[in-house]
């Protein structure tokens, strides 16, 4: 049972444009959501997170939006840069100190 889903396995965007990565979840007990970026042969790198009491969180070029009623979150990267090319995972947890449930990942390619 895949509780966190990323339905787009890949996304291609031109440099300077907006990248939008989507994530859906089914478990209503999730109350914290995170995005990670992963390069080949490296561990996931934490990008940005959002608590379920918020609907938006920004950090520089990265913004995460949460729609609790739709059980949907998205990561916006503006402007996209070639160095952003990586696999992006969304993850969710039921409170702190608990396991992260990961989505299947979206391969982002930012083209020149």
């Amino acid at each position, binding site marked *: 049972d895949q509780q966190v889903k990323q339905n787009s396995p890949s996304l291609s965007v031109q440099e300077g444009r907006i990248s939008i990565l989507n994530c859906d979840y089914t478990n209503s007990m999730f109350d914290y959501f*995170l995005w990670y970026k992963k390069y080949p042969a490296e561990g*996931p790198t*934490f990008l940005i997170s959002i608590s379920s009491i918020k609907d938006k969180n920004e950090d520089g070029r990265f913004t995460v939006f949460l729609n609790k009623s739709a059980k949907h979150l998205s990561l916006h990267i503006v402007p996209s840069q070639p160095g952003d090319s990586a696999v992006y995972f969304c993850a969710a947890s039921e409170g702190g100190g608990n396991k992260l449930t990961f989505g299947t990942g979206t391969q982002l390619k930012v083209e020149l």
Partner: protein
Amino acid sequence: SAVISQKPSRDICQRGTSLTIQCQVDSQVTMMFWYRQQPGQSLTLIATANQGSEATYESGFVIDKFPISRPNLTFSTLTVSNMSPEDSSIYLCSVEFGNYEQYFGPGTRLTVT
């Protein structure tokens, strides 16, 4: 955040043998986790390893197959026992400092032949 290292970074092992993976953190942390990423798959939690208590295993993972040690607040090991080709994966440790955010080590890429 924290600096997290893992040893070995990669290994090729024969079936039936065991491999111990080390995870070292540059600061004291209560909560450590071990994950597995099988080829083409997402990350799956194997167990939670908090110092001072027995590791807690997720459904589908057992201590006999994946024994874990947590001798202090900066170090943990995961052993993959009696390996089979299905154990070929990337194994990752992570830590959390109580702020809901987990930080990951670089991973250990294991290939079982």
